[in-house]
């Protein structure tokens, strides 16, 4: 009983600690500051929320971040799903090499990956900008997409696919009607994770962006002059959208699972 109280208190403190910066980011979007340095509380105002996009360059930066996040998440999820299917479903030579190849990007510090890509683009005389950032984001998202989808495929029943094949569905029909619906939650989770990782990436982007502005690049540039509160407004909006998206995903998943269980119970 004592241990229970102790550990729950500890957990409370731990989560409190983790949320202090979250609270500060949100609170300082309402800070009525007079100067440039948004680091001390000067009163409450809603004026930064009235027109957060009025700040020159901010809306373009956010737009770039959004489209890069969408495209890189899309490509890395599709390509990553194929790899995950190969890893779970098939026995083949070169499996451990594949695992290692997927692990290495996750184990590489971002500065190393960013700078290595930069040396490639310099030698290949590719100008840094939107395309190079997109290529880089697909790269670092790929391994995470594989891991996420794979976790979902590992647990599911192969017999359903075999049943479909027995009923004369060809491989493509089996994939579209049986496999895909089953792994879809994993694929969706991979997409969301990749989107979030891409949107928030600063280091690799910084090495390969040239003069392109993304949201993190914009924020970093602003730290030199003092971060405008509009950046906190955007940060809060992003946070809010992501929390809502995650909640919807989890609620839908839980409901789906309940329905599956009910169907199973009814079948018995």
């Amino acid at each position, binding site marked *: 009983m004592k*241990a*229970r109280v102790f*550990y*729950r208190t*500890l*957990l409370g403190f*731990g989560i409190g*600690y*983790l949320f*202090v*910066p*979250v609270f*500060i980011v949100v609170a300082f979007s309402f800070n009525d500051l007079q100067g440039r340095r948004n*680091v*001390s509380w000067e009163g409450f105002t809603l004026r930064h929320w009235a027109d957060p996009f009025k700040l020159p360059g901010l809306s373009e930066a956010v737009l770039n971040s959004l489209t890069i996040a969408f495209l890189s998440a899309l490509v890395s999820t599709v*390509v*990553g799903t*194929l*790899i995950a299917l*190969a890893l779970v479903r*098939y026995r*083949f030579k070169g499996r451990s090499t594949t*695992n*290692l*190849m997927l692990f290495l*990007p996750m*184990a590489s*510090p971002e*500065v*190393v990956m960013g*700078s*290595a*890509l*930069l*040396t*490639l683009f*310099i030698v290949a005389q590719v100008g840094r900008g939107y395309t190079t950032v997109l*290529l880089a984001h*697909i*790269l670092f998202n*790929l*391994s995470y997409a*594989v*891991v996420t989808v*794979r976790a979902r495929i590992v647990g599911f029943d192969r017999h359903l696919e075999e049943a479909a094949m027995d009923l004369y569905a060809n491989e493509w029909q089996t994939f579209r009607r049986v496999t895909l619906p089953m792994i879809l939650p994993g694929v969706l989770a991979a997409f969301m994770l990749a989107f979030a990782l891409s*949107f*928030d990436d*600063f280091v690799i982007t910084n*090495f390969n962006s040239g003069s392109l502005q993304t*949201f*993190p690049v914009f924020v970093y540039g602003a*730290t030199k002059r003092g*971060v405008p509160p509009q*950046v906190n407004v955007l*940060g809060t909006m*992003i*946070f809010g959208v*992501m*929390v809502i998206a*995650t909640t919807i995903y989890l609620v839908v998943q839980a409901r789906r699972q309940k329905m599956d269980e009910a169907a199973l119970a009814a079948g018995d």
Partner: protein
Amino acid sequence: MTARSALATKADRRRRLVPYALLAPGMLWLLVFYVVPMFRLAITSLQEGSLEQGYQFTGNLDSYASVFTTYLPQLRNSLMFAFGATVIGLLIAYPLAYAIAFYTSRWKSLFLLLILVPLLVPFLLRTLAWRVILADQGVVVTALKTIGLLPENGRLLSTGWAILAGLVYNYLAFMALPIYVSLDKIEPSLLEAANDLYASPWTAFRKVTLPMSMPGVISGTLLTFIPAAGDYVNVELLGNRNWTMMGNVIQSKFLVIIDYPAAAAISFTLMAIIVTMVVLYVRKVGTEELLT
């Protein structure tokens, strides 16, 4: 051979090629944008020259010598901060993961989610928030002064402590999550058995829980140490010039004061340190475990 079995072998062969077809696009991507760049980085580190006159490959190792002479302080800072952040992170994350795994009953997933939610705030903004927390007139500094842990004119912002605070905070979830996963896998019956055999709670923890949570501890350690060793953002935003790390040198030599060979050599050295750690890890647990 009959026509029928020939057909079967053909179908067989096709089936055997399926996994490779599935792997091809992703592996090609990794080859072109990961493996090739790493080689480019290695080649660049062995070049000589300047931005104006161009760089020639000479197999020159001077850049590597400079890593261990000119940039020794940065190398030391990287390893020191990464080590510090890992140890402190472990000390905070382990009890948290332990509390979630064993003391939250049916609210497990909710608490786990609460650990992860702060990651949804943009990384740079989360880090900048520490400027507010550690500000000279802030609550933390005032409290530390009151209890005498900080001298009257002392500060936290722009010191090594601020960098450490930022690093610990930013990577804590990556430490806590794998530890939780391995703690959660432990069968309660194992701990009951230890109890039945007159093991004290401490002995049971030491002999059962701790060894079984080691895979999580190792993953968490790697997931904290690797990004922390390569970090330069926390130093830029929270620290000062005296505490620059390898990442700062790589960033400035690639993007500000251009010196590609030196930057590449530092980058490659950092990668070598990490790869050595990962190899030791792989030897222990095998490649399948890496991706889970």
